[in-house]
């Protein structure tokens, strides 16, 4: 079945919906998503969205931009980070005007709270910058944007899984997707395609990410020769619920919560004497693993499932009820504890991909260091890499990213489709795109997918996790190569066509394996430590050799990695101390 639209948006999280609202004003726009719209993972974001409104104390967009650059260990593109911080302010007001129920100050304005790495006057002290709706800010953004899509009658194709994107001569002409309800393959011919497929935390065993976060957009593009940027930078959030990885928002620490080891010591005093528990996430995750490694975890046995404590009991019942009700609910449900009475057992959890599909600041996919774009192809949100997060994203900036760049992409698309014609669909590309599913359906037997998934998640966790070593990563690359080989032999055991969730899971596993491969290869190549990429064999940051983005291109069984310059035109790089 062939559909024709001006614009097709893939993914119905914050970036996708924002883009659809903007583009949909003038152009025939469709949103396809493998989930129902309100199920997307934007809804899981908790603590807040950063914007220098200055509602409770002095703040400036310039400070927000600087914090973003420093938080990213100087790998963020500085003009893009400035744009992010400037436009965050208007974006937050716009969301409020659309009905988003932010918490309020006594005088009725949007309330703001502290978050990791956000400071006043270029690092002096923490600043209250995070605008929030209790600890379900992402849920409220997703709901508000979906509500607007209903109001403006945006067309949705629910439960369509992306299979391929058609690109020829640097021009995108559409995409292929499989419909869960029928098993049918659909081709969408479009002037512009925006990928907003979210993150890929399911690469790792312990993650805060949804089952759906399998990086479908970046993986599909990688197989079509689009290089992926900065794949070696993957953020571990320091406070996931022990064992489950469920996120415990940084807002717990923003409101005054404290991390402690088995001796009751506030160990962040050693690692970040200035910002303490509000240091950036990469530093705190490493601090926790160091404490555990030196026998000061709660169990004290230095094991992979050892943990530390996040103590919020001194905040009192009222603060927790008003500002952190979801966290309270998670603790009751999954741990059987009340955070107002007892500390929360936490360990780092794979959380956010700083890398992804390289784009410019209008969301256009740019494939090389010269800024060559693929006409008609866009990306925004976590799957994209502008780059505003550099080597480590600051808390609240993911929500800023998706509203600012979702909107910017939507505006650019709106202008572009006004003057562009509907491209021809190259028949051979379409046939090639539909082939893998046909092959999967024909094959019976072969290896079971589940052991491959478990193997991948374990080795990514152990060998390409928080602390990395060349030897481990080289092994990981080899093992992933093997897993990719086995994957090609997988057959489909569920032979039904309708609502075949097994088929989708196998496609997702293929996407994850390709991204695991690109991540491990990129990490192995970067011989320095920067932000979330921490190498025991190269512990220092090396600006002379490595102050550059990486662009990793998948070519069948090989990965070629090139460089892309970093914009450091505003703040010269300095050592990163907090």
């Amino acid at each position, binding site marked *: 079945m062939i559909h024709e639209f001006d614009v097709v948006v893939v993914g119905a999280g914050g970036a996708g919906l924002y883009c659809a609202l903007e583009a949909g004003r003038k152009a025939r726009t469709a949103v396809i998503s493998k*989930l*129902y719209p*309100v*199920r*997307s*993972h934007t*809804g*899981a974001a908790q603590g807040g969205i950063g914007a220098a409104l200055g509602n409770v104390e002095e703040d400036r967009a310039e400070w927000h931009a600087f914090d973003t650059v420093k938080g990213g260990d100087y790998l963020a593109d500085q003009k893009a980070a400035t744009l992010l911080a400037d436009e965050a302010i*208007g974006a937050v*007001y716009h969301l*409020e*005007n*659309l*009905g988003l*129920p*932010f*918490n*309020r*100050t*006594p*005088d*009725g*304005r*949007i309330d703001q709270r502290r978050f990791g790495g956000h400071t006043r006057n270029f690092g002096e002290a923490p600043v209250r910058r995070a605008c929030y*709706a*209790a600890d*379900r800010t992402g*849920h*409220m953004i997703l*709901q508000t944007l979906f*509500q*607007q899509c*209903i*109001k403006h009658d945006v067309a949705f194709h629910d439960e369509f899984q992306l299979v391929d994107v058609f690109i020829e001569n640097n021009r995108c002409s559409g995409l292929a997707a499989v419909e869960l*309800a029928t098993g049918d393959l659909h081709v969408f011919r479009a002037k512009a395609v925006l990928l907003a497929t979210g993150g890929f935390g399911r690469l790792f065993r312990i993650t805060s990410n*949804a*089952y*759906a976060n399998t990086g479908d957009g970046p993986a599909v593009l990688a197989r079509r020769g689009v290089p992926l940027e900065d794949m070696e930078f993957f953020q571990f959030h320091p406070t996931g619920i022990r*064992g*489950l990885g*469920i*996120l415990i928002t940084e807002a717990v620490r923003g409101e005054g919560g404290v991390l402690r080891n088995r001796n009751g010591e506030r160990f962040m005093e050693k690692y970040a004497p200035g910002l303490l528990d509000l240091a950036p996430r990469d530093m705190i995750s490493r601090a926790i693993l160091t404490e555990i490694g030196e026998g000061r975890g709660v169990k004290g046995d230095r094991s992979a499932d050892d943990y530390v404590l996040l103590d919020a009991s001194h905040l009192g019942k009222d603060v927790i009820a008003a500002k952190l009700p*979801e966290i309270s*609910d*998670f603790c009751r*449900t*999954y741990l059987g504890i009340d955070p107002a009475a007892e500390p929360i057992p936490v360990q780092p959890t794979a959380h956010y991909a700083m890398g992804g599909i390289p784009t410019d600041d209008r969301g256009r996919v740019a494939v090389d260091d010269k800024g060559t774009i693929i006409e008609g192809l866009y990306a925004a949100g976590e799957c994209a890499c502008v780059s505003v997060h550099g080597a480590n994203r600051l808390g609240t900036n993911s929500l800023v990213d998706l509203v600012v760049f979702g909107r910017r992409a939507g505006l650019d698309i709106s202008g572009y489709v006004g003057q562009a014609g509907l491209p021809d669909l190259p028949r051979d590309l379409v046939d090639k795109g539909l082939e893998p599913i046909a092959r999967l359906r024909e094959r019976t037997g072969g290896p*079971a*997918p*589940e052991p491959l*998934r478990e193997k991948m998640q374990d080795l990514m966790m152990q060998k390409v996790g928080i602390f990395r070593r060349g030897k481990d990563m080289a092994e990981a690359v080899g093992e992933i190569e093997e897993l990719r080989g086995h994957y090609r032999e997988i057959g489909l*055991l*569920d032979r*039904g066509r*309708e*609502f075949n*969730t*097994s088929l989708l*899971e196998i496609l997702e596993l293929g996407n994850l394996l390709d991204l695991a491969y690109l991540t491990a290869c990129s990490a192995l190549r970067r011989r320095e430590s920067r932000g979330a990429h921490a190498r025991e064999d190269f512990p220092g940051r090396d600006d002379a050799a490595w102050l550059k983005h990486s662009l990793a291109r998948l070519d069948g069984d090989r990965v070629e990695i090139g460089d892309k310059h970093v914009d450091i035109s505003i703040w010269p790089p300095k050592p990163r101390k907090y």
Partner: protein
Amino acid sequence: MKIILEIQRFNPKKNQFPYFQRYEIGAEPNDRLLDVLMRLQRTVDPTLGLRKSCAHGICGSDAMVIDGHERLACKTLVKEVASGDGAVVRIEPLRTMPVQRDLMVDQGSFFAHYRKVKPYLINSEEVREKERLQSPEERARFDDATKCILCAACYSACPVRQKTNAAYIGPAAIVQASRFIEDGRDRGFEERLPDLDFSDGVWPCVNFFECTRVCPRSIKVTYLINLTKRRITDYRKPKGDNSRAKPG
């Protein structure tokens, strides 16, 4: 320990009637039931159909009927439903919606009813580059309703929808309407009135409280339905109109 999952299976393309299939599977007391179901699907029976995503109770994908009650599988721990070795847990799809496959139901009518109540802020007054002011007290008034994740547990559990009026718009749609009616920034009460004040609108509810009992977000659903009824009768009182202020 080993537990028994007794799961309702139904593929409308293949089966004339739904049937139950029993699976014995290993589980830890602190596992989420969703983890066990996913392990079952991934290692034992790939044909089992179910939806899931966030796995911690915020996306609303995995509502189902567990031992007779609507719950999210990801917010249900094994120890809450299985006392020990050999314990049986019965799992069925949500009610009042057609089954698509096993535990997956067609939520089309649920979302259609939700869309019908105009679940978005209605206010065309201009604001320029600033927020609309709202006191913390005004904000608190509609807080409960903003927690809704549209999981359809209440829609499934409602005895009115199950037995007497399948056309009733259901609890979630009214909660969503209430979220805006109680928001001082909204101006859409009169616009929404026709979609609430009619025989399948707010009035079929007769306070069974099942919606409140099953809500995985602990929203006081029945209270919000009654509050909405009261807003409608209060609106009509000065006009001397009480024509449809009673159920039916």
